[in-house]
């Protein structure tokens, strides 16, 4: 049992934020897969599986970043984090949005 680094529990709250973002992704992926599987078939299932994998990765990241941040804050008082994972996450969200836009435009033109 070790005490938290910060009485405001900033590292813990950030870790939980990663977890709930992963949950939101899993949920959104499940709902979108369920709603589009009639029209998109295997494509919808594949995208849903990718979303679940990304959600699991985010939940894992929550733990990894928590441990690294805690260790570094104890050791040197600074954060080891940088923007790499954030850039990847943001790019993934842009890809999801683009795919959704294609789906809607394709639906308007085709059906």
């Amino acid at each position, binding site marked *: 049992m070790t005490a938290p680094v910060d009485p405001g529990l900033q590292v813990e709250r950030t870790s939980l934020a990663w977890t709930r973002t992963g949950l939101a992704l899993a949920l*959104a992926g499940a709902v979108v897969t369920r709603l589009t599987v009639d029209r998109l078939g295997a494509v919808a299932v594949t995208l849903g599986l990718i979303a679940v994998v990304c959600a699991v990765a985010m939940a894992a990241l929550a733990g990894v970043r928590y441990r690294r941040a805690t260790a570094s804050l104890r050791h040197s008082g600074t954060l080891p984090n940088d923007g790499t994972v954030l850039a990847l996450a943001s790019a993934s969200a842009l890809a999801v949005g683009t795919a959704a836009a294609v789906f809607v435009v394709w639906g308007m033109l085709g059906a």
Partner: protein
Amino acid sequence: MSSGRASGGNGDSVDDEGSDENQGSDGGRSRFPRRVYAVGNEPDPRFSLANERTFLAWLRTSLALVAAGVALEALGFPQSAGFRGAAAFVFIALGLAAAGRAWFGWMATESAMRRNSPLPAPAVGFLLVIGIATGVLLVAFGLIL
């Protein structure tokens, strides 16, 4: 304490490899994006963590907006194809904007904190309010007309 960082064992042959001005504990590893980390001083870690949570909140907002747009289209709600498509498109465009805002806003805020300058204004928030109102109105019109 077996999980401590192994950066302590490099004290023998590291001659002035470069900038050790603000964080000597970084092991010389350059942090991405350089644009943010090349300038200023390390802010209070609590502020960086808060910035990270704000980033994640925008990401969730983006997901919710995109899911809303896809759901409208997939459920055929409202039935009027024109209004439905327009509303779905508005929500998805807002979702894309939110994903962009997540990253660029994080960069701008982290950068401002490192320079000790005022935080950037939340410009996309206004766009989001107008956009969501427009999307909801489009759905409403689609139901009424």
